Structures are given as structure tokens and as C-alpha cells.
């Protein structure tokens, strides 16, 4: 090797070091530069929330198939494979996606996968109606606008910690998304402003709508399911029918996309009019699914209140 060749090699090495040292010094251990985070979600609303927060800065991956019913879901091998590739997982955490933790454990990611509890900072409220005198936490925080915005903010804050280079963009996107959700709500608030809500009494088959009702100053007088996802016994059903009659309830909200088996006998026994609200579960995951479903829910709620005014 000649002297000039050795010098050239030395220069190359020095140049490489000059480039590499700052790159290593500023390298972020939480999110490698240029690599998009793979963010797992468990439920439909969280797909919409995260997709709107991250835009094109990260990849949103649904942990389970879109058509699956989260209330009784049994983990499948494909879910485990998906969980193995994730950088972070967003969960409801308080009652709808316990199966996610089985999937994460089976994927061997129990100790390595950061979990974002979307409800970590949401003020929970009890299930409406009489739950045998007990105050039972209502986990349906995503069927609302205010609690949904609170979850969007919580997810944004945590994602910003995991992906600092994109934190400002995430926050900007979250604020824009929150503004859209509020605008949606405001449109219906204007419609509600002309209605007398004081006499509105309703029952629901599933304890899924207390957060949404709270936003409009409405309250649930009776819930048919004695516990989340549990069908009532004959005695419990009879007691609920009595409660509906005593409270002068005229409207029953059943579950869209779910069986009306519970609603039909109550309709027959009490004369209530049945309306269907969405639990925000559909056939496909999409960024606008939450807004579409909530618009339908608010439309249904407005129709029910207007029905009561007649």
C-alpha cells in the first residue's frame, strides 16, 4: 500500500467518524429516525383516534379483525403474529379488551411492548340506572365526544413521549381532530337547545351510553343487562320492566349491529319505542369511523328526544 493510499484511507475513516459521532449522539432510543412507529389498537374508535393523531407519520394496526365482537373475543394465532411486530399498543383497558393482554403475553411481548391506557386520565362515571345500589364503572368512554377528546389527548401525550420527533405534529393533529369532534357535537347541541330535555327518560339494553347522555344533560333510568355483556334472568327482566313503567320511560336504546332479543319483549311489555345506537363496532376500520358512528348516534338521540316531545 502506498503512502497516498494510506492517507486516503485515514481521511475516509476520519470523515466517517465525523459523520457517525453526531449521528450517534443525537440518535433517539425511543424512535429510530425514519422509522414509522407501528401502533396497535384494540377497538374501532381507537383506530380512528390514532389514525387522526398520527396522520402519515406512523402506521396504525388493528390487533383483531374488524368484524370481531370485542365483548366475547377469543384470541387467534394471527393476532399473536401481529402483536409481535408492534411498537406500542393502545387499549381501552377498563373493560373491553382484556383479550389484548392475553395476545401480548402469548406473543412474548409482555415485558417489551409499551401499553397506552387511553382512559388513564378520563374521569369515569358509574353505569346509569339502579345497579342494585352499587356504583359500577362504565367502560364505554369512547361512545361520547368529551371523553373521546380526553382519550385523544392522552394517547397523543403518550405517543409524543415514545416518538418525540413527531410529538408536535401529533399534538397539532389531535387539536384539529378535537375541534372537528366538538363541531360535530355543537351541531347537535343547537338542535337540542330548542327541545325540553327535562322530561326525557330512557332505558338502554347495554350500559354503553352514559357518557354520551351526560353531555346532553340526559340520564339513563334503567339498564337491562345486569352486568356488562350479561343477559338478565327472568326475575331481573321483570324488575327492570317494573322500573321502566314506574319511571315513565318511553324510549329504549338497543344496540345497533347486535341482536334485538332483549329489546323486543320489553317493547311488548311496556310500549316503549326502540331506537338503536352504535357501540362503534363495524365491518372495517377507518379514520372517520368514529365521527360517522357518533353522527349517527347523535342523530338517533335527537330523534328519540323529539319523539318524546310529541
Amino acid at each position, binding site marked *: 500500500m502506498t503512502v497516498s493510499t494510506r492517507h486516503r484511507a485515514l481521511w475516509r475513516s476520519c470523515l466517517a467518524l465525523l459523520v457517525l459521532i453526531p449521528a450517534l449522539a443525537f440518535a433517539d432510543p425511543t424512535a429510530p429516525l425514519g422509522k414509522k412507529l407501528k401502533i396497535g389498537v384494540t377497538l374501532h374508535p381507537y383506530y380512528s383516534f390514532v389514525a387522526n393523531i398520527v396522520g402519515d407519520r406512523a402506521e396504525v394496526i388493528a390487533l383483531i379483525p374488524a368484524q370481531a365482537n370485542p365483548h366475547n373475543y377469543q384470541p387467534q394465532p394471527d393476532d399473536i403474529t401481529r402483536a409481535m411486530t408492534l411498537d406500542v399498543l393502545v387499549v381501552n383497558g377498563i373493560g373491553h379488551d382484556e383479550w389484548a393482554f392475553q395476545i401480548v403475553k402469548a406473543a412474548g411481548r409482555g415485558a417489551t411492548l409499551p401499553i397506552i391506557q387511553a382512559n388513564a386520565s378520563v374521569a369515569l362515571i358509574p353505569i346509569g340506572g339502579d345497579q342494585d345500589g352499587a356504583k359500577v364503572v362504565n367502560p364505554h368512554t369512547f361512545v361520547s365526544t*368529551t371523553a373521546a377528546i380526553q382519550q385523544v389527548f392522552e394517547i397523543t401525550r403518550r405517543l409524543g413521549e415514545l416518538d418525540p420527533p413527531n410529538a408536535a405534529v401529533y399534538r397539532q393533529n389531535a*387539536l384539529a381532530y378535537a375541534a372537528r369532534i366538538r363541531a360535530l357535537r355543537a351541531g347537535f347541541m343547537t338542535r337540542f337547545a330548542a327541545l325540553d330535555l327535562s322530561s326525557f327518560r330512557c332505558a338502554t339494553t347495554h350500559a354503553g351510553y352514559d357518557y354520551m347522555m351526560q353531555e346532553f344533560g340526559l340520564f339513563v333510568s334503567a339498564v337491562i343487562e345486569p352486568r356488562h355483556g350479561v343477559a338478565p334472568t327472568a326475575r331481573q327482566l321483570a324488575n327492570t320492566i317494573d322500573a321502566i313503567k314506574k319511571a315513565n320511560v318511553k324510549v329504549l336504546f338497543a344496540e345497533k349491529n347486535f341482536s334485538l332479543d332483549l329489546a323486543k319483549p320489553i317493547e311488548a311489555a311496556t310500549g316503549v319505542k326502540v331506537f338503536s345506537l352504535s357501540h362503534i363496532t363495524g365491518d372495517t376500520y377507518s379514520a372517520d369511523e368514529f365521527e360517522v358512528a357518533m353522527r349517527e348516534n347523535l342523530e338517533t338521540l335527537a330523534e328519540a328526544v323529539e319523539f318524546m316531545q310529541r
Partner: protein
Amino acid sequence: MTNLSRTSPGDDVNGAVHVVRPASSRWESLALLFAALAIIASVTGYVLLRPQHAGPPTPLSWQVRSFDGLGAVDQAIHSALLPAGEEIIWNNNDTGGWITLEQAQKILLPPFYRDAFWKTNGEVHWQLILPGTHLPHAGSVDDHDDADAPTPPPPSDVSKATLGQGATVYYGSAGRAPGQSAYLLVIGHAHAGVMWANQATIWIHRDPNAPYPGIVKPESLVGQGWRQVIPYDGASEVERVKGNQP
């Protein structure tokens, strides 16, 4: 004919009983006794010393839980104040300013935005009190027209004597819903050195017309009958159900 033996195992040829003891006979019963005692002691020890799952936070005398300590209207306003507080803090981080009540109308921010929610939940009169002053900021008084509404209470003497405490406060009073409270959303400001800097705390007063307290430090608020609202949030619920999470 063979005589069938009527002896039992252990009998000798003369019919005398001879007890054959197992080799471990001296300690087997004792070992069984010790084993039973050890199991009982272990189970008792586990029951007494097992890690307790955290229950809902117990409020102190000057606190109230949002989950089961508030009426429906207070609960609804508290639920709206939480994300509003977060958005106000983000806005302050980005712009250095505070969202005025005029801006809150433009961005439709509950509970300040005067919509059906505001109407149903008592038509609360909101004021923004900035750090360094006890008076509402210009353009930050919720001046809705309502001849029937009670006049919002003036700042107390204490507040006149103490010009601000380094915290930004959204003060809600004069609500008309039955059983409704007065509200404070207190946002600590990092530069002011208040103890809950960069956080929002929510306080309520049983009297919906409680005057603005002036000093918004916890000990002072407590002395004037304000109670801090402790949210029962998802993190608390997860802790209650699963114990402490990593």
C-alpha cells in the same frame, strides 16, 4: 382334608396377634401433623400478608371524588373541565397565552361554550382570572344576556388584598341547576413556582355563588370551604382491578 387356616396376616402359628409396625411409624404421624400445620400457617400468612389491590382513592376531608361524590351536573361540568384544562395548557405551551372565554366560544370549548350542555347544566357564569391579577381578564368574562340570572359575586376582600398567586383560574359561579356548586379550574404556571405547576386542579364550592377566593393555594381554598375534586380515572380503575402496573 386340609384344615383351612382361620388366622389373619400377622397372627403367628398359635393364633397370637403380632402387630407389624412400618419402619417409619415413629415419625409419620408427627410429619403429617407438621405438614398440616405448615399448610395452615402458609394459607393464614398469605391471607394476612397478601398484596392488597388498591381501591378507589379515599378522599381527605377537603376532597371529593368525582365518581361518587358529585351530583350529576357537577359531574358533567367536571368531565368537561378535564379535557378543557389539557387543551388550555397545550395552548399556553404553544402560544404563551391563555384561552379567553371569547375564544372558548369560537372553538366551541365546553363547559364554557354556551350551548345546550351549558344551558342544561345551570348556565354557569365563567370568568378568567390571569396570574398577577384578581380581576377577570378583558374579554374573558362570560357576559351572556340574562336578566333573571343572579349577579355574579364580586371578588372577595381577600382577593382585593392579594393580587394574584401565579396561577391562571377559570372561575365558574351563579349556576342555576339545583344542587349545583361553584367551580375553579386552577392551572399552575411553571414560572410562578406554585406547587402544582403545569397541572390543572379542579375545585368546587357547595355555594354556587361563592365569591372568587383570591388566594388559590390549597390551604387557603380549603379554609374558605372549597373542596378539590379527585377524578376516579382509568389509571385508578386499572390499579384497582389489576394492582400496580409497571
